[in-house]
């Protein structure tokens, strides 16, 4: 029963893996180019609503983000809070935040700055209306309601 040969047979040749780094580097470069650094810790839940008429926001550098939603940390209750950058904030902080963000940009870009409002579905319009009023006060008139694109029926 010498179906399986013993050590005497030819050794199996090693598989050539010299191209493996090339493949992995290719993947690596793809991810480096196609993705963007996660730059903030989310402190609030933002399950954004769905919509059909959404448009892509092309220039990511021309975006300011405002997050609104119930805190992720259950100990803080369920009342929706505003998050700017990495910290909780109140409606009164928005003017200052937008002004600060815009001051880092080129003056020519400021009219094109869009505020991306990422608000949870459960948020009530009261807080959103307040945010809109604050944005109008600092002349940040381009707003985008962040939404998931769904196909039109």
């Amino acid at each position: 029963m010498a179906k399986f040969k013993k050590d005497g047979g030819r050794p199996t040749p090693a598989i050539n893996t010299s191209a493996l780094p090339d493949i992995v580097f290719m993947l690596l470069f793809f991810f480096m180019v196609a993705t963007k650094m996660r730059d903030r810790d989310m402190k609030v839940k933002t399950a954004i609503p769905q919509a059909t008429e959404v448009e892509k926001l092309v220039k990511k550098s021309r975006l300011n983000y405002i997050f609104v939603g119930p805190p992720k940390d259950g100990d803080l209750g369920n009342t929706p809070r505003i998050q700017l950058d990495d910290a909780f904030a109140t409606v009164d902080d928005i003017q200052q935040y937008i002004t600060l963000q815009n001051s880092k940009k080129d003056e020519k870009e400021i009219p094109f700055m869009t505020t991306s409002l990422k608000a949870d579905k459960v948020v009530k319009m009261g807080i959103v209306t307040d945010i809109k009023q604050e944005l109008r006060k600092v002349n940040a008139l381009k707003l985008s309601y962040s939404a998931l694109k769904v196909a039109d029926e």
Partner: protein
Amino acid sequence: MGSRRRDIPEINAGSMADIAFLLLVFFLVTTTMDVPNGLQVALPPMSEEPPPDSKQRKREVLEVLINAGDQLLVEGAPMRIDKLRQKAMDHLTNEGTDPTLSTTSTKAVVSLKNDRGTSYDMYVQVYNELTAAYNDVRDEYSMREFGKLYTKLSTEREKEKIKQVKEKYPKKLSEAEPVSIGK
């Protein structure tokens, strides 16, 4: 310099893949791929003086109200959200045929009012339907005039066409100054 030529030993590149994998995993973990998508809104500039009394006749304005219970009221009558788009399109393309709706598309206004207790989800849905109505009538007009959908018109080469469509159906989606309209 020795006179003997030695063969340069081959560098062992076996662990190159490991290094590359490590970097790959690092990038997979620390980056996100989400493309920001959203409904674009142009807010009206803030002005100190109260808005001038609207001289517009009532028939030019399609009044949309959402109450704190997320119920929709269009021109004083309750409506389901799936009927809203058609109603808004009828209003925009009326051109004076129906005496309750707008006289011309250039004057037609859609007014959206919501309560502080309205849910954001409902508001976005309504806003989406109204935007869709504008996009649909613009698409229809553009298709009739230029044989091309409005959304497919090139922003660089067909500026004039886009302007013409925008003039025919200007997006006059006004949002009321915030008030509490109660339940």
